[in-house]
């Protein structure tokens, strides 16, 4: 009897480099490194020509201009062929009058889906779940969102997530629950007793206690 090593791909981790790839897309062959310098939302959908996915593609296309303002590119993926993708985006354009402005990976060999852990065998062994990876301009995975096959994603939340990440980077702050651009942000907690005391006296800062302070940007 021979034993075969079962290799489980290491899944992406927050704060670590995204797995590199080269893939066929509706825009031709692309590599992850081609997106360096821009942020990237890499997202998977279960299959072309399915209704929930179609609503999501319409919604992703609708937020694409807002993402562009934030220097964020979109890249879709499913385990379908390039020809299927092309036929589907042409169908969307014909039936819904919406042009899909981003490339879609044709991941027939499941290489990218496997590297990113997009297949949930408990749901489906042949389709990718609704995964979203927010990758920053240095190629680091900054956020991961997983939705099941049945549930379409919320584009407002994805935009909010990008805004929160970019605000955190730009200002060295964190963002509270339900934060929206324009809301007050959370200041990093002081690390010394002296700084804690000083924080409570700081001007322009709203402190409930030394560790819980907000400020307007």
């Amino acid at each position, binding site marked *: 009897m021979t034993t075969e090593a079962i290799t489980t791909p290491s899944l992406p981790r927050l704060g670590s480099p995204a797995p590199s790839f080269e893939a066929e897309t509706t*825009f*031709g*062959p*692309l*590599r992850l*490194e*081609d*997106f360096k*310098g*821009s942020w990237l939302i890499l997202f998977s959908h279960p299959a072309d020509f399915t209704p929930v996915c179609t609503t999501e593609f319409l919604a992703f296309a609708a937020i694409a201009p807002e993402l562009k303002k934030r220097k964020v*590119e979109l890249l879709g993926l499913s385990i379908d062929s390039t020809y299927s993708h092309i036929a589907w985006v042409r169908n969307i354009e014909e039936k819904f009058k919406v042009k899909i402005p981003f490339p879609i990976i044709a991941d027939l060999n499941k290489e990218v889906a496997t590297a990113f852990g997009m297949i949930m065998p408990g749901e489906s062994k042949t389709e990718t779940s609704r995964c979203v990876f927010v990758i920053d301009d240095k190629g680091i995975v900054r956020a991961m969102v997983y939705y099941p096959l049945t549930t379409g994603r919320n584009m407002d939340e994805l935009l909010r997530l990008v805004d929160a990440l970019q605000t955190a980077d730009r200002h060295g702050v964190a963002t509270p629950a339900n934060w929206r651009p324009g809301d007050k942000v959370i200041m990093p907690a002081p690390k010394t007793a002296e700084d804690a005391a000083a924080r409570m006296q700081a001007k322009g800062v709203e402190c409930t206690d030394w560790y819980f302070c907000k400020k307007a940007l």
Partner: protein
Amino acid sequence: MACISADGTLTVQARLVLTAFQSPRTPEDVAATTDIALFRIRGSLRELVTAGLIEQVGDGYRITVAGRQQLAAPAA
């Protein structure tokens, strides 16, 4: 292939990129001054350099003689 069709003719994307690199330029410069996304320029350059239609010059790229000839040929 995103830049060269199966019949050997240039794709729409290849024509855009070849036209943008008439003189030596960086991909970032082209992305900043055209509507072509930087990731598309990088992907196309890889293919066009391999095909000998674009060459690297210092930090930038420019169209080759073969690239000019292909660009002058009628579109598919």
